[in-house]
């Protein structure tokens, strides 16, 4: 366990983000209306620097290091999740720069908030202490509320922000109560201490109840059923670039925190009490997963707003990801197997590319045509061939069709849950397959509208050079990771070595 000074070497990317936040805020106070480009450049540069540092192996230890007196842990999992958060944040700033939904006067503050929020997410993935865990969650939460309400003149945006605040406060209250129960049992906020006490005294019944309450709070972050109600309204109300950000980053952070919590409390434990707890949690999370994907997909079927449709689709994807979390029994016992947890990370990386790509197309359509209704996408295949073709790639990847990356992600997830080898997981896999099938209906509807329907308006819809470049940059991994996902498997191997 390292002291504060020695720990600094393990939070360098977060440090870079902190400097970026300060820099962007300072720059933003001068003539905010004229410096949109400068602010975007500063934000992107900060994110890119942190990303480059992480990719270069900075603050990326080979083993596991407990830093800051055990408040956070630094390991490969933190590092690879940093990549996800930073990439999402960076792309969000690029999207927002080209979108007219974010007022120029707010642009600097928005950039700073995204950077700060990414920093909070990094801490969510690293938290090894109940206090730190809650603090990081709230950090991300409070910034999200502000980001959701950025379009002040738009009633829906304000409503979205308010809904987000109320749901967020309630769910984090529940999570906090669960954490306080754990603290009450252990007399210590450190998860290692909590684990030691729980192993000594057995997990039932208070430990289980506390965990369920914490998971309820995290379920809100992940937008899992039944904590998903806020999701469609917030996604629809928030500015589209922010929606893109919400649909990937906080969700990924919620999953990172869940995986971390499960590993710190249950990873490698033995004893009968732990085993029954693990199976109980697996069934619980598996049921939530089934409910989440089914509700998400069925609700998406009848949506006419593409943003709302993608909101429900992101709920459904949370359900797929939860299948991987449900493999908790595998991480317990003398030879823990983290395949399911790695599948979650693997899927998140792919989800990042395909989902951000889809949202970028929506951003451009909303900016150009002023509507995110499905009918606005009519004839996009002719009006903007590049956007339509890459959108089709992203959507088919979201369905999970080869040779796109979405297929590789689903393949890994199904592999992970089928290797659990119990009847419950077979049922879970069948439900997952049935849901992939249902999802084709609504994704294909957008594709149909883009390519098969005729629009009365046939004027071209220019995407803009920057967006075109970013779209292609997002489309390449969406295809490439479908036919060559070996490197991504290696990267996922860093999740709990």
């Amino acid at each position, binding site marked *: 366990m390292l002291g504060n000074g020695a720990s600094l070497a393990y939070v360098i990317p977060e440090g870079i983000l902190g400097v970026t936040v300060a820099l962007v805020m300072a720059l933003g106070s001068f003539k905010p209306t004229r410096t949109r480009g400068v602010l975007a450049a500063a934000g992107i540069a900060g994110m890119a620097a942190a990303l480059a540092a992480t990719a270069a192996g900075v603050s990326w230890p080979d083993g596991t290091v407990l830093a800051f007196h055990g408040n956070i842990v630094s390991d490969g999992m933190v590092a690879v999740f940093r990549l996800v958060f930073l990439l999402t944040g960076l792309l969000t700033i690029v999207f927002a720069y080209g979108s007219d939904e974010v007022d120029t006067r707010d642009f600097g503050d928005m950039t700073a908030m995204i950077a700060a929020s990414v920093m909070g997410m990094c801490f969510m993935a690293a938290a090894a202490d109940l206090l730190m865990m809650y603090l990081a969650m709230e950090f991300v939460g409070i910034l999200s509320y502000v980001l959701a309400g950025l379009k002040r003149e738009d009633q829906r945006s304000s409503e979205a922000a308010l809904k987000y605040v109320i749901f967020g406060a309630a769910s984090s209250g529940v999570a906090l109560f669960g954490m306080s129960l754990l603290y009450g049992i252990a007399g210590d906020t450190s998860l290692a201490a909590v684990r030691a006490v729980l192993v000594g005294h057995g997990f039932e019944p208070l430990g289980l109840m506390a965990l369920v309450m914490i998971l309820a709070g995290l379920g809100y972050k992940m937008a899992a059923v039944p904590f998903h109600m806020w999701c469609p309204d917030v996604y629809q109300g928030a500015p589209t670039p922010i929606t893109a950000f919400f649909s990937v980053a906080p969700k990924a952070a919620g999953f990172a925190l869940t995986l971390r919590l499960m590993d710190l409390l249950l990873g490698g434990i033995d004893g009968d009490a732990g085993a029954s707890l693990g199976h109980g949690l697996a069934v619980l999370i598996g049921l939530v997963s089934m409910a989440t994907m089914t509700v998400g997909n069925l609700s998406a079927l009848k949506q006419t707003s593409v943003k709302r449709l993608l909101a429900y689709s992101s709920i459904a994807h949370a359900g797929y990801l939860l299948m991987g979390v449900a493999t908790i029994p595998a991480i317990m016992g003398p030879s823990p197997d983290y395949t399911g947890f790695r599948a979650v990370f693997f899927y998140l990386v792919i989800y990042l590319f395909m989902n951000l790509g889809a949202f970028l197309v929506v951003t451009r359509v909303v900016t150009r045509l002023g509507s995110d209704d499905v009918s606005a996408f009519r004839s996009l295949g002719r009006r903007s061939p590049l956007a339509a073709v890459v959108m089709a790639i992203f959507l088919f990847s979201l369905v999970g069709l*080869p040779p796109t990356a979405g*297929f590789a992600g689903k393949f890994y997830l199904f*592999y992970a849950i089928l290797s659990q080898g119990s009847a419950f997981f077979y049922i879970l896999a069948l439900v997952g*397959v049935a849901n992939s099938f249902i999802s*084709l*209906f609504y994704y*294909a509807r957008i594709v*149909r509208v883009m390519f*098969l329907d005729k629009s009365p308006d046939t004027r071209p819809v220019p995407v803009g050079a920057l967006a075109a470049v970013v779209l292609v940059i997002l489309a390449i991994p969406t295809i490439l990771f479908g*036919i060559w996902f070996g490197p991504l498997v290696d990267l996922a191997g860093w999740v709990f070595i």
Partner: protein
Amino acid sequence: MVDHVLTWMTFSPLIGAAIIVFLPGRFKESFKYIAVATAAVPLLLAVQVFLNFDTHLVPDIAALKSAAPSLDPRAYGLQFVDHIVWIKAFNIEYFVGIDGVSVPMVLLTALVSFIAVLASFLVKKPVEPLHNSQAGIKVKERGYYALILLLETGMMGVFVALDFFLFYVFWELMLLPMYFLIGIWGGPRKEYAAIKFFLYTLAGSLLMLLAIVYMYIYGTAGHGEFLLADGTTADHTFNMMYFAYNTNFEWVSFITGKMLWVLFFIGFAIKIPMFPFHTWLPDAHVEAPTAVSVILAGVLLKMGTYGILRINYPIFPSETLWAAGAMAAFGTINIVYGAFCAMAQKDFKSLVAYSSISHMGFVLLGMSSFTQEGMNGAVLQMFNHGTITSMMFLLVGVIYDRAHHRDLEGFGGLAKVMPIYTGFVGLAFLAALGLPGLSGFISEALVFLGAFQTHRVATIISMSGVILAAGYVLWMIHRVFLGPLKKEEYAQFADLNWREWATLVPLAIIVIVLGFYPMPVLNLMSASLGALKDLVLAAAM
């Protein structure tokens, strides 16, 4: 001589598609020429495969079952093999190769795809702009030719892939181009037909995916280590050959084996399409443009029966024997039901579509016999049906181009106006009903010969299919070609143009030659099919 010939055959259309996609718009006129040139590459390579294929090579099953997994493709009866590790983390390999089961399909794919591209050429400028003509593509040529070439890559890949993962990727790869080809260039109800095709096939293939992943995890347990192409060993494998020849299925309870068999079978049966999964086919055919119909009937349907022969038969032999009766029964239902439906059709194209369902029933029946004649007949029928049905759809396209409708009651007396056309129609449809001297007869006769030894009742019932086929074919000829002309302007119809000649003649030659002398194709397959039959029958003991 070209090395890596199967890889080139699979991916050269993809290269052509990429060229077409990235060429600037001012080369618009040349897209179709690039497409046809690209499609000619696999065809030329197919000739090389045909000439160099060793027809006597078969796997020595007894030796393989007792031996450790090896990397020698000839031990497994495979030729033209390319084998490298693709994604190491999951032991996924790029493993392509052919044996006697797949070589007729590879040749058929190369041929039919080339003809389909050629059949998409627009010969005359359209009189009415953007009329929903079904032959000759005049709008969005870039997308059309790129997609049809991509489709060829997918189809070819399915027939050469010997790694489960690779197989699945190709299997799904062909879905998307097909969806767009029907959905964009199709007829009035194209959206419905396209999504129906997509959903049916996806439902089946997702079940197949579960089965594949399950087999990867559990199917290889307890079999020690498998060799990968790079010489390293692995605990799990996607290699179909190892599953077929190096595992002996003690790992799996019979129940699980049956479940896996059924999962695979449903995925393939939807593609065949086997009753009751057939309803997507008439819709897809009626709406698809001519060239796409040609590919759909000529190649895509065979992927279903090919998959059963490639996966269900060698990997689950005892389950296959268990299900043989059901397969024969479904084959019989297909034959009779398809023929009855064909009789009732008013639309020329749906008639051909239902006749396809009927003819694919012969394949199922022949396959389920486990006799040399029956198996040979089944695969020969796959090849013959590919050529004959392609001709039939091309011929429907010819008349649709001129009359802009396909109502069987709306013609009459065309024999006088278009004698050459009538001749080709007669040839194709008589081949379809199994007239001796044409290729359809040989394969149907072989199927009956083989199946009669195993499934007597089913075979006798199926024979009525031939009579019914005579019924709908002759009645169709009567309605369309004999009697008085229904409309005056039909007298102005021109006979075949050069494109129609060019697409029909090669197929007609094959139909006639194989009708007299089927040995060139039969020789390709019979040794491998014999070995496959022995492998399955060995499970009964």
